[in-house]
């Protein structure tokens, strides 16, 4: 009898449904109370507040905000500044997502070997991820300095013209993306290496026996089996790119002439410098919608193509 019982417990699927432990009806709720209070106060409530405030003219300076309908949104989409923020953010996100994932994939395939040298190389690529964006922004600001920076003096060695990096409206966003990709690519690589190591060797052996070329193996086996991880990276990197703030605030303050101002920087400025909470909140709601829509698109379009083993 006892034996049967334990088998019954063990055979429960491990994902989702936990084993049956007898407990008081309220016990789990009591245990979850602090966590749910925290999530309620710092996730749900602020979001509701954000949406509600976006329909008012709330300001830091004045009490009693009035309901103003959609006028904050109307103003946003008529503001040249906000339109360029929108453009900058989307460009930044696009470049960041494409380059960080592509380079991470390249590094993962390249450095996925068990010896000491390769694990050292992996560590070198990974370390920027755990270092503060403050440090990284400052050192790259110095490296990209148009006058005294090392990068331009390197270009000079090769007799190339100095590159404007952060000082030109056309090059500032790509330069910022370069720094961010440099910081994050090691983490993304790490996730892909872990995924690569989960692919059973037997699949590769079978492909070899069938005479598949290296490229065919990569495109037909490696990539499809990496799709769950690539899909995860797509979601993570998009969110990461759209919430970027630190390098903007430290390296460019949105300049030159607004060409690197992004969503969070815009919200920060309007809330804390111009005290227009309602207007800033409307910007926040739009950012929330963009993230939500992108994640929904990923889930719908890509989840169908994801290959699980």
């Amino acid at each position: 009898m006892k034996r049967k019982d334990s088998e019954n417990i063990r055979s429960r699927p491990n994902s989702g449904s936990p084993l049956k432990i007898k407990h008081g009806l309220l016990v789990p709720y009591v245990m979850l109370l602090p966590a749910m209070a925290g999530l309620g106060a710092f996730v749900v409530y602020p979001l509701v507040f954000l949406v509600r405030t976006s329909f008012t003219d709330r300001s830091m300076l004045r009490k009693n905000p009035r309901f103003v309908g959609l006028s904050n949104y109307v103003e946003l989409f008529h503001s040249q500044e906000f339109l360029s923020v929108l453009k900058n953010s989307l460009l930044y996100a696009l470049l960041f997502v494409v380059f960080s994932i592509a380079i991470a994939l390249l590094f993962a395939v390249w450095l996925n070997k068990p010896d000491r040298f390769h694990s050292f190389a992996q560590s070198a690529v990974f370390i920027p991820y755990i270092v503060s964006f403050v440090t990284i922004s400052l050192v790259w600001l110095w490296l990209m300095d148009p006058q005294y920076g090392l990068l331009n003096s390197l270009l000079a060695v090769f007799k190339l013209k100095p590159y404007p990096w952060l000082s030109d409206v056309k090059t500032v966003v790509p330069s910022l993306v370069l720094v961010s990709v440099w910081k994050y690519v090691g983490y993304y690589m790490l996730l892909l290496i872990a995924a690569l190591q989960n692919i059973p060797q037997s699949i590769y052996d079978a492909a070899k026996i069938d005479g598949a070329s290296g490229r065919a193996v990569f495109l037909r086996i490696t990539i499809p089996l990496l799709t769950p991880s690539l899909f995860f990276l797509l979601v993570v990197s998009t969110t990461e790119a759209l919430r970027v703030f630190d390098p903007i605030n430290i390296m460019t303050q949105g300049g030159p002439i607004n060409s690197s101002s992004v969503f969070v920087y815009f919200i920060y400025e309007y809330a804390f410098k111009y005290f227009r909470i309602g207007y800033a909140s409307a910007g926040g709601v739009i950012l929330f919608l963009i993230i939500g829509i992108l994640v929904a698109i990923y889930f719908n379009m890509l989840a169908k193509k994801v290959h699980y083993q």
Partner: protein
Amino acid sequence: MTSNLRQLTSKPISTVFKSLAYLALICMFIFPFFWILSNSLKTFQETMVFPPKVFPEKPIFSNYVEALKRMPFFKYLINSITVNVLILISQFIVIIPASYAFAMYRFRGRGLLFTLVLFGFMLPQQLTFVPIYLMFGKLKLLNSYAPLVLPFAASSFGIFLLRQYFMGIPTEIIEAGYLDGMNNRQIMIYLMMPMAKSALASVALISFITHWNDYFWPLVMTNTQKVRTLPLGVAALRVTDGTTEWNVLMAANMLLILPILFTYFFAHKQIKEALIHSGIK
């Protein structure tokens, strides 16, 4: 025959090419850190020459002393440590019971509540900082440790990681506990917690790395030195209008990253595993 020959001749060239690629890769990622170190040992004049020198002529350490003097370094350091410790304590208090309940118990609304955790994981705090700022303002708690600590207590990441860990513990162990006449609370405290030590250490490591480095949150939530943390102090050493003394700034950066590098040196395996774990599931 010809193909054999080609293989023979092309091998050394491809090896050279490969080694160069490795060298370039490692330089690309290590060099900026070397540059921080090197410039932290230069004189101000040396940082202002073009083309820049890779090594300081004669390394000086006075920039470090200067960095300590330019900001209330020890005040910031103590704030950073306090905030990190408080976050960790509050996270443990909140996430241990929560993740245990999610992993072990079945109850109505479990799926819904877990969706809320997932949602917290996905929602960046850069979206909700204005409402949270106003909330703490209303409670007259701005410029205290509260806004730097409380929003992070219910860490979705921590709940995730621990829940995953508890779910992986073999059921035999719990059955053995029951057979020994333990009740649920005893099983949790005496059986499960000691086994979860490494998972808790992972949570602690990731929490430390995240909040030690954090710039955005303390920036928006505070405006006095009283509670500001080290990254803000370092960032403030840069003068936007005027000449920044990069040598002092880089010395300050060294002080900011050393604790992280130490942590990485001693716990790199665990850090990587925790990050991979959270990423895959």
